[in-house]
């Protein structure tokens, strides 16, 4: 199954399940891309997520759930 498991979303960076209930992960925006996408730094690597639903800039920390940033974390 080469390639097909390659993902956009953040890898499971903790032992919480990423989909579930109410847990999302905090990541830092490294690069904004067209189409409301962004590369984010998860601490474990760079992942591609959607930031279309938040207004955030490079360097901001956002909360990502299932590949979608849903909130900006205020420092």
């Amino acid at each position, binding site marked *: 199954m080469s390639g*097909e498991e390659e993902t956009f979303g953040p890898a499971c960076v903790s032992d919480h399940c990423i989909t579930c*209930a109410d847990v999302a992960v905090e990541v830092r925006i490294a690069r904004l891309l067209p189409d409301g996408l962004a590369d984010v730094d998860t601490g474990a690597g760079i992942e591609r997520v959607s930031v279309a639903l938040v207004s955030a800039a490079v360097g901001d920390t956002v909360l990502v759930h299932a*590949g979608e940033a849903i909130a900006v974390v205020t420092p």
Partner: protein
Amino acid sequence: MRFVDEFRDADKARALAAKIAALCEPGRTYQFMEVCGGHTHTIYKHGLEDYLPEAITLVHGPGCPVCVIPMGRVDDAMHLAANPDVIMTSFGDMMRVPGSRGSFLDAKAEGTDIRMVYSPLDSLKIARQNPDKQVVFMAIGFETTAPSTAMTMLRARSAGLANFSVFCNHVTIIPAIKAILDSPDLRLDGFIGPGHVSTVIGCRPYEFIARDYRRPVVVAGFEPLDILQSIYLLMLQLSAGRCAVENQYSRVVPWDGNVVALRAIGQTMELRPYFEWRGLGVISHSALRVRDAFAAMDAERLFSVPGVRVADPKACQCGEVLKGVLKPWECKVFGTACTPETPIGTCMVSPEGACAAYYNYGRMNRNRVPEATVPAGRP
């Protein structure tokens, strides 16, 4: 345990434990429900109950989307996935949820094309790579995940993708909380409100709990100290005879939620008249379906799904656990027939399910810190 590693946190936790204990009225007991499975996980993982006096019990709520999916919906999804024209895509934890004829993982092992994704965006990618197949995304989750599904549908539409659809099982948290408040089995003194759901819906939707049911709600973060702090805030409200909605997690949760995300959900999905929840039964207006305007992306309309109701296995007591009436270890099959490797019920599947959280971290004996003792002989 984290508190041991970072002793300053442990100091803070003990200080909070003392403040919480000092607010306990002698002879009174308190039951707080943490609605969200993420909180359940943190509570067990960090042994937070050790920091609470005996008088305070935490009741684990229904806030784990995998845990509330009824068996009939899993069977419907399996039926969809069995269609040779379909590639089913699903989050990892959903893969292990048992239907009446096994789980996605079992079906995948038998050759059904079911693929695990981390985000619905991955499903879009699979759809682009497989134009001759219909790629169905098994959408589950509360208002935390619904924005992601909504954005993906909007993206699919603007990209003109004709072979992507959603099997929508999104649920909404408020009707579930209301069902629990109306359930006669349970007496709750307050709620630890879900953190990340609230980033989307905000804090206002909880106001009815304080206003109509006279119970305090504190929306809480996910660090151990966030949860202890929230319990302290609940105790402060109770001891002052107040009930209000408070936001302990304001570093992430705006009072009004994420309006853009709510708009995206509203554009693509609408409330179902009713939906069955495992353990809670049928609750009206408690789930989302795909709007007519997006009918071409609604797997329920593109394919026929049997839609039968399937009773949970006899041995399974998930319903009682989800309502907080039974503690996980009180279920007859807990840890014997039902384990995270071979789950019978859904609460054993996701690490946020109360049974799995307890199985992984639970200790039968509490090792209560001395600060969590209610001071005796108060005037």
